[in-house]
Structures are given as structure tokens and as C-alpha cells.
């Protein structure tokens, strides 16, 4: 009885109708109850619904195909994503085989255009350039004119240029977390050294260190690409959960759970979260946020591995906890706290 040929198809059709209606937006409590009743009525209903729902949710990633492109209608097949995607890489090295084809030719052409149009652009473009700076020990959240917001970590410099065609931010040093407001007409671009991160409606952080750049994506998708259009460097798509580390020419991408990436940007709420982290690295984090620096005098101490969630303001409390749980002795000075092996 269960398997008349139309059975699964019929159920799936109903499931799709429910989902499409919910997607339409005018979704009342009555609708929700009616759907719940339908789902309860048979397991076959529920699994058909879950299946479509999961793929539809997953299809939200398609948004990445639009990142940074100018929105002039629906592109023809294969040109939309596939041609583009063949140029993308999620690995440290770009595949040499794909280079030199269409997109780069297009990029070169666009660069020529930019040279021609450049003069005019600069005259009309930047609307209200603003520079933000936080001293060590201070974080600050600012709302930008387009409705986006950004939180600057300690010791950070960020320049914001909003123009009609682009939202261009330059991270000169430190780290900032961005909640980019949706605006398909104006890409949200964060430039950091020789890379830039392109997003549309998404949440992510960019952090500069002496020799590395780190991008953490907590929602949506961003594109990491060379800032100067250098075609020898790979373009990398980073979906939510990604942590990308750039060192010179290499891009390393790790995929973590959303909970884990949120921890990496928890400094916004005043917390630093560590999981099996070398004390050297944990201390470096504290030092980013505090004028009173922690100094590790013995390598054996730095190699200890710690975990937990700490307030970054309270470096001394962190060290006192260390002393209780680990073979560490601390010497508390005004300017610094020195850690030694006993």
C-alpha cells in the first residue's frame, strides 16, 4: 500500500508546497500549527519535509555566487557560478591548470576599464571617510552610515570609506569584527595588507598580525582575494565556520563548527576562549588586550596547554588561576607579570 508509484512524489509535492509557503513570508501561527499537524500525521511526511528543508537551507550558500558581482539580472547557465568556481580554490595552492582562462582575461579587461574610469571614480566616490582607532585595552563598536556595524579589538586602526559603488574598509592593524548590512549594489570590502575580504550581508572578523592575516566567518560567505588583483594569488571562498590564515602566499582554511568560530570572536563580549591552547598563544591573546603584559620567562611554561574562558580585562586573575593549577610561579609587577617554572 505504501508504495504506489505516486506516493512518495505526492507527499513530496505537499512538503514542497509547505516550504514554499513558509518561504513566502506571510506565515501565521495557524500555518505553523497546520504544518506541525501534517508532519505529525506520518513519518513519511516528516522525512520528505526534512529532506527538502535541508537542501533548501543549504542552497543559501548560493549567495556566494553573487558576492561582489554587479547585480544586473540572472546570468546565463554555467557562466553564473561554474566558470567562476573553477577559478576558486579552497586549498593553499592554486591549480596552475586553470589559470589564464576567461575570468582573468575579464579581470585584465576590467583593470583596463578601471584605469580609464579611475579618474572619474575618485572624484565622485568617497562620501565620508572616517578613521577609527582603539588604544590597547579598549574595544569599541561603531555603527557605519550604511547600517553595518564593526567592533574594533584592542589596538586597532580601521579606515572606512563608503561610496555609492562600494563600501571600502582598510584594516591597518589589529582586529575588527564586521556585521555587514545587506546591500547588493555595494560590495562590502575589507582590505588588509595584500588581501581583501569581500562580503555581502554577513558576519566575520579580520585580524592582522605581524606576518599573518586571519579571517573568521561566523555567518554567510565571504570571498578572500588579493587586494591588487594579483592573478597569481588564489581567490578563496569562505563559508560560515571557516577560519582562514594567510601567510605570504599560502592560504590555510580550517572548517570549524559555528560554536567554535564564535569563540574566536568572543573578545567582543570581553571573553577569551581557549581550547587546548599553548600558554604562549593564550598569553599573546591577553597581551593584545592589556597594557600590563604577561611575559613567559621559561620555555617549559609556554608549552603548557590550557583551556577555558577568561575575561581579558583580568589578566592577573588568569595568572593566579594558572599558579593554582599548573607548575607556574608568577611575579607581579606594575608593567608586567613574569611567569617562571618553579
Amino acid at each position, binding site marked *: 500500500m505504501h*508504495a504506489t508509484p505516486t506516493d512518495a512524489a505526492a507527499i513530496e509535492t505537499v512538503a514542497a508546497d509547505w*516550504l514554499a509557503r513558509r518561504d513566502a513570508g506571510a506565515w501565521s501561527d495557524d500555518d505553523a500549527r497546520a504544518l506541525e499537524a501534517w508532519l505529525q500525521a506520518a513519518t513519511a511526511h516528516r522525512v520528505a519535509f526534512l529532506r527538502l528543508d535541508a537542501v533548501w537551507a543549504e542552497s543559501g550558500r548560493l549567495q556566494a555566487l553573487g558576492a561582489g558581482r554587479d547585480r544586473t539580472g540572472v546570468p546565463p547557465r554555467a557562466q553564473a557560478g561554474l566558470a567562476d568556481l573553477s577559478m576558486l580554490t579552497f586549498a593553499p595552492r592554486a591549480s596552475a591548470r586553470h589559470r589564464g582562462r576567461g575570468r582573468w582575461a575579464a579581470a585584465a579587461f576590467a583593470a583596463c576599464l578601471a584605469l580609464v574610469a579611475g579618474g572619474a571614480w575618485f572624484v565622485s566616490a568617497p562620501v565620508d571617510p572616517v578613521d577609527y582607532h582603539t588604544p590597547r585595552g579598549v574595544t569599541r563598536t561603531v555603527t557605519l552610515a550604511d547600517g553595518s556595524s564593526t567592533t574594533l579589538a584592542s589596538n586597532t586602526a580601521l579606515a572606512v570609506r563608503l561610496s555609492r559603488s562600494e563600501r571600502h574598509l582598510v584594516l591597518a592593524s589589529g582586529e575588527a569584527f564586521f556585521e555587514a548590512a545587506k546591500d547588493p549594489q555595494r560590495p562590502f570590502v575589507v582590505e588588509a595588507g595584500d588581501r581583501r575580504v569581500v562580503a555581502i550581508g554577513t558576519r566575520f572578523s579580520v585580524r592582522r598580525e605581524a606576518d599573518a592575516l586571519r579571517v573568521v566567518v561566523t555567518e554567510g560567505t565571504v570571498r578572500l582575494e588579493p587586494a591588487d588583483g594579483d592573478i597569481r594569488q588564489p581567490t578563496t571562498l569562505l*563559508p560560515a565556520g571557516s577560519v582562514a590564515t594567510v601567510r605570504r602566499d599560502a592560504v590555510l582554511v580550517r572548517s570549524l563548527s559555528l560554536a567554535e568560530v564564535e569563540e574566536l570572536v568572543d573578545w567582543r563580549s570581553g571573553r577569551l576562549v581557549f581550547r587546548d591552547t599553548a600558554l604562549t598563544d593564550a598569553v599573546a591573546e591577553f597581551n593584545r588586550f592589556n597594557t600590563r603584559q604577561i611575559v613567559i620567562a621559561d620555555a617549559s611554561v609556554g608549552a603548557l596547554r590550557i583551556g577555558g574562558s577568561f575575561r581579558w580585562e583580568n589578566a592577573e586573575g588568569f595568572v593566579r588561576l594558572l599558579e593554582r593549577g599548573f607548575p607556574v610561579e608568577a611575579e607581579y609587577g606594575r608593567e608586567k607579570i613574569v611567569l617562571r617554572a618553579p
Partner: protein
Amino acid sequence: MTADLDAWFVEEILVHEGALRHYLARHWPNVDERADLRQEVYARVYQAAASELPRHPKAFLLTTARHLVVDRARRGKVVSIEPMGDLEPLHVLVDEVSPERWCGGRQVLRRLSDALDRLPDRCREVVWLRRVEELSQREVAQRMGITEKTVEKHIAKGMRLLADQFLGGDDAQPRARRDAGADHRDADDDARHAD
């Protein structure tokens, strides 16, 4: 409770739809009935998981499929026993971290974009505007000059086609490639069994 189970079902079972379809394609000759069997397998797995989560989801999924196929075959009305000669040893990848898993990144996006490109024209346009440009259904209707009801219908159709394409894995590929994939997979299975 239900939400946990739902999430488990999506993350641990649906990701293996490619393998399930592959199994059914080999063991159930009647193409028209495979979608029904697939749904029945899913329902059985979901129900079983409600009382206890299987430890090896993929193996459990394929075992359930096998039992269902055997049940149906025994009833004898649907299909003869003969085409199912290789039922006994169930070649199952017990490796739970399988390539079917929706790992983030490029492959997923490529499969999605493939699936998108296989939609019929109007349907594809609607899904593009809704999913890539993130317009609301109402905005899509205005942009395309069609009614909201029509947009909703295209969305519903798009959901079904995307799911078939995206989850289909090997099955969604042209036959030549699918066969090549099947050979490869069998070899893979044997290698694992030898371990």
C-alpha cells in the same frame, strides 16, 4: 527531542542519499518505484532512530534498505528474486566520515550551482533571485512581472529539483560516469573489507 532527531537525520542520514540511491539502483529493477522505496527507507530509519540512534548511520541506512528490498522481494508480487542475486554480502562503507558528507566549501557550492543550472529557465531565474540576490518572493514577483503565487510554485518545484540533484550524487550523473563510479566504489569496498 524532535529537533535533535531531525538534525541527526539531516546530518547523518540524508548526506548518504547518493549511496542509498546507488544501492536501490542496483537492487531494484523498477525505476518508477525507487523513490517510494527511498522514502520508505527514510521513514523506517527515522522511526528506529526515535527510540535509539544507530551507531553507524550509513551502515544502518543501507541495511534498512536491504531489509526493505528483501521484504518486498519475498512478497513476490513486485519483482522476481533473480535480479537480486548479489544481495547476501552487503558491501557497506562503514567509514562514517565519507565523501558524501556535506563538508563546507567548494564542492558543495559546485554541486549546488550545478543543480541550479539544471533547473528549467523560469524556475532557475526565480531561485537565483531568491537565493543569490536574496530578494523576497514578493520582490521576485515584481522583478519578473509574475504573480506571487507563481513565484511560490516555482520555489516549490525548485526545492524538489534541487534536492534530487544535490543529494543524488552518482545517480544524478549521466550513465557512463555513474557506471565508472560504481566500479570504483566496489573496488573501494573490497579494499575496506580486506582491512
